[in-house]
């Protein structure tokens, strides 16, 4: 053994961490080599000094301080683990709540502008989401849901009696579907009519809260401070914790519920759009050129939600016996803050690359608070702009028939259709109507390819309440 080799082993030799052979070899070398002997001695002395250091005693009360921090942590929002464990139950409970809270009053409970907003703003997302959701819905009708709940019930071992009666008749096969148990997201596809069943799960989740609370109380009672104190502490802590949990759970549920309502609403909207496009497609089938028809069908099949409007737009503006040429289309929009809206409109128009024109409406024509923006753009640009505005919560009241942008709008009963008018009298009529915001579209009366046809658009905004008043007058 060489010095170099031996020296590498000296620490391990000191520590008794060498194999017998290695040890013998080192000892053999040490007998012959004084340098390595000194090296060993210096290391041994070093180790001796380090080992002579006294042990540091922990400051008094350290375990108590740790215990205190633990208690604080447990009382505070540190409950992720718990939530994670109960996630499936909570998710289901969330759905239940969605249905209970939102469904009955959806028409009024949801801000009016929210629907168009989501319908348009999230068309792409919707496309992504609605397909799996729809697929899941097909796969996950009651026969799957029932065993899933059954499995969960069995797993959790306990449940309340409230709301039991609702298991759909004939939809509860005895076998527990383990696959279903593993897919809590299936719950999102649960049909809207199942609110009551899901309510069970809410109760279940609540039971879980109580159980964990009981466990915590028992644990605290077994604590070292004596039964009385421990009990009082546990009760107090339990109360706080329960309160926290309830609040947090409520928040969780609201979040879930928002998510799933949005998803459902978008899904419904997608369906609506698809249905909306159906007549146009049908018309195309009847009369359009075969390759165009095939293309549109393919489009509709491939991306139903996003493409439906485009399909419809193309169908209405091109393929069908040309729709009545549009000279003027009006989209009334009620706006809360006209100046603010105007700023946004201007920015959007510029961003879209449309040409701003001087506003024409002036003087007596203009109502208080009314704002006019006038610009020139193509059909396509108008559609894009319109979508952007819908995203921002504009509430269109009126869209002229035949305007491609209509297809981007949700079908709503308030969206009335007007006959075409010539530019000048329309202006007067609008002046008479006075309120509401309007998108006036001026176009050539001869049908042209939409991209080539520039539009002159006048956007008028008036305070929302005036718009509403005007709407009533009509």
């Amino acid at each position, binding site marked *: 053994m060489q010095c170099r080799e031996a020296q590498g082993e000296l620490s391990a030799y000191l520590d008794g961490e060498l194999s017998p052979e290695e040890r013998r070899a080192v000892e053999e070398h040490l007998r012959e080599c004084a340098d390595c002997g000194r090296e060993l001695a*210096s290391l041994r002395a070093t180790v001796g000094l380090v080992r002579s250091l006294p042990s*540091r005693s922990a400051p008094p009360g350290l*375990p108590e301080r740790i215990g205190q921090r633990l208690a604080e942590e447990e009382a505070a929002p540190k409950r992720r683990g718990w939530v994670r464990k109960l996630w499936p139950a909570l998710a289901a409970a969330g759905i239940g709540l969605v249905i209970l809270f939102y469904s009955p009053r959806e028409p009024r409970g949801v801000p009016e502008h929210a629907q168009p907003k989501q319908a348009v703003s999230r068309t792409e997302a919707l496309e992504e989401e609605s397909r799996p959701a729809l697929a899941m819905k097909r796969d996950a009708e009651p026969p799957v849901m029932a065993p899933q709940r059954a499995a969960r019930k069995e797993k959790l071992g306990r449940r309340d009696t409230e709301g039991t009666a609702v298991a759909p008749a004939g939809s509860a096969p005895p076998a527990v579907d383990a696959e279903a148990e593993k897919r809590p997201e299936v719950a999102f596809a649960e049909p809207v009519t199942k609110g009551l069943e899901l309510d069970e799960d809410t109760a279940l989740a609540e039971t879980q809260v109580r159980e964990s609370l009981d466990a915590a109380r028992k644990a605290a009672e077994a604590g070292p401070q004596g039964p009385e104190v421990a009990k009082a502490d546990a009760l107090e802590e339990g109360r706080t914790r329960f309160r926290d949990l309830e609040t947090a759970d409520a928040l969780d549920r609201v979040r879930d519920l928002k998510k799933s309502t949005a998803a459902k609403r978008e899904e419904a909207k997608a369906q609506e759009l698809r249905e909306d496009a159906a007549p146009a497609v049908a018309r195309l089938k009847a009369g359009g050129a075969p390759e165009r028809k095939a293309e549109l069908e393919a489009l509709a099949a491939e991306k139903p939600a996003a493409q439906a409007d485009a399909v419809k737009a193309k169908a209405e503006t091109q393929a069908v016996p040309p729709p009545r040429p549009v000279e003027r289309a009006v989209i009334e929009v009620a706006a809360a803050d006209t100046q603010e809206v105007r700023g946004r409109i201007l920015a959007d128009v510029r961003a879209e690359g449309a040409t701003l024109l001087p506003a024409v409406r002036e003087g007596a024509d203009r109502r208080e608070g009314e704002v006019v923006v006038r610009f020139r753009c193509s059909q396509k640009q108008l559609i894009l702009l319109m979508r952007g505005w819908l995203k921002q919560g504009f509430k269109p009241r009126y869209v002229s028939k035949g305007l491609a942008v209509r297809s981007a709008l949700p079908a709503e009963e308030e969206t009335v259709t007007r006959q075409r008018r010539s530019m000048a009298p329309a202006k007067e009529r609008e002046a008479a109507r006075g309120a509401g915001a309007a998108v006036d579209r001026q176009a050539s009366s001869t049908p042209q390819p939409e991209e080539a046809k520039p539009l002159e658009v006048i956007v008028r905004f008036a305070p929302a309440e005036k718009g509403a008043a005007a709407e009533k007058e009509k």
Partner: protein
Amino acid sequence: MAVTKDESELIELCRSGDRAAFGDLVRAHEQRVYNLAYRLTNDPQDAEDVTQEAFLKAYRNIARFEGTSSFYTWIYRITVNAVVSRRRYRAVRPATVPLSSPNGGEHPTLPPDASQPDPADEAHRADVRRVVEGAIARLDEDHRVLVVLRDIEGRDYQEIAEILDCPRGTVKSRLHRARRMLRDLLAPVLPADSAV
């Protein structure tokens, strides 16, 4: 080393959320953990903070403790990681500590040998202790942790390898390097006959 029966029972109770059982675990290990933390940080306050963090982390993750190694191996590992992440977090803090004030903590140290009555000798020992503590503190973290685990905590190579989650060969070579560095730092106080 397997978990002792009592300890495994305590750990089982901790898993079910029994804080009292965890309190017992803390009391059983606080001295070791604190000492380790103190030697790694060379600061009483840091040591306490690290100890608290380590135990809190252990409690939070008790479900992940598999019982294949001993609890102290596990808690040592958590402690070492807590020190490392703490240092990363406060990267400004220099890795070295002035030699003059390593003993400035408010907690009394146990005399190395209470049967030493000679005040002069006692003073000398205190000096040496300060120098040794300072030297350890001047080692970089990777090497200091080995010296502390082996020569202060008395862990064998295998345990150290588990605690640091590294091969035993690494423990061996790095510890050797650490001791040589330490020896060079301690040269002034080493007995004359052992100087290289």
